[in-house]
């Protein structure tokens, strides 16, 4: 029996699907995969990529943190913020990463934590984009560099 997956943010219901074979999520203790018949679980999430496998295809999302709950083949992601890979703005993520890097060098403690959080968010977004790029360019023949 496939999994039912819901991705919910405070602002909207981003996704609801009932034909999911596997969910790979950025748990706070590391990446974790959820297959059907998983034991009941609640875990916090760190910023990173959420991969949804269904049939032969895979959809990628970025989540900026939150929770994941598994209960009787029902997977619920309560995300602070979540985006489809196609919604991510490459330039914005890139600038955010650079800004966070700069801040991190000169920041005091309180700012440091914020810069660190912002850095890991932008890195997470970039990672999702990277996977998307590899997947599409793999289909069209690999392009060098970029």
């Amino acid at each position, binding site marked *: 029996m496939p999994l039912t997956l819901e991705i919910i943010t405070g602002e909207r219901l981003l996704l609801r699907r009932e034909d999911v074979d596997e969910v790979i999520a950025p748990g706070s203790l590391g990446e974790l995969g959820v297959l059907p018949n998983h034991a*009941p679980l*609640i875990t916090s999430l760190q910023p990173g990529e959420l991969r949804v496998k269904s049939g032969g295809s895979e959809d990628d999302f970025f989540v900026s943190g939150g929770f994941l709950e598994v209960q009787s083949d029902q997977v619920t992601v309560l995300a602070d913020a979540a985006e489809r890979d196609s919604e991510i703005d490459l330039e914005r993520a890139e600038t955010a990463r650079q800004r966070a890097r700069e801040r991190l060098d000169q920041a005091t403690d309180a700012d440091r934590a914020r810069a660190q959080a912002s850095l890991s968010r932008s890195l997470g977004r970039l990672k999702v984009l990277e996977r998307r790029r590899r997947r599409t360019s793999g289909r069209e023949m690999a392009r060098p560099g970029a």
Partner: protein
Amino acid sequence: MANTREIRRRIRSVENTAKITNALQLVAASKMRRAQDRALQARPYAEKMREVLGHLSGLIGDPDASHALLERRDVRETSVIFVTPDRGLCGGLIANLERHAGEIVLGPETGGDVSMIPVGRKGSDYFRRFGVNYHAQFQELGDYPGLAETQPISRIAMEEYINGDVDRVLLVYASFVNTVTQMPITVPLLPVERADAAEGEEASESEYIFEPSPQEVLAELLPRYVDLLVYQAILEAAASEQSARMVAMRNATDAANEMIDDLTLVYNKARQEQITSELLDITGGVEAMQS
């Protein structure tokens, strides 16, 4: 009987008022639709979060899983987050909110001291007259506030609660029932109420795996839950405000149109009377010349 020119001026002025209230009504109607959508869209997240918290509630009594936001204390000081519109022209909404909040803030039965965090200009103006102490205030959140705008509010509430400045935080806002009904309500925000586990789920609680640990999940979940309660209250308040304004402006437009009809009738009567008396004058004059 007022003369015709005066009545005509009066009609024109009421027409202008009707134009303005009609425009305000249209603006409020379009904002209302969006604000209502947003308020309704935020509900699944809140419900799901309550559910997860319910799964944790078996642990909430557990001393290992305690958290500063759950700690109950004797109430010496209450903080009231009071959400009101920034602008008026929304019928009885603001007066109802003020009356409702007044019972808590100024009423005798609350007990202990009361401080406030007014969100929105109207509520802030109102209680300033009573010399209520404000710990913080927020205004101009915009018509469609996001989580980023409401988070500072919930963060301050949590801070003053954890510091022990206040022993209880209440949230007062206009809950959105439907377009014609908005109900001022009071919701306890802090300490976080023990969520009731859904019926029949009691058994599965102990089987949950928590990562990294129940305490850490609770520590992450609770602040977000509080953030969300405040966010939702503000979305509901925004939907209520626009709905109340739309209805108030529609009533005003209807009333103005009715007044125009009445005045037009009076105007026509006066005009006819004038013509009649002119005719009488003329015929009287003619008769006088003939005789």
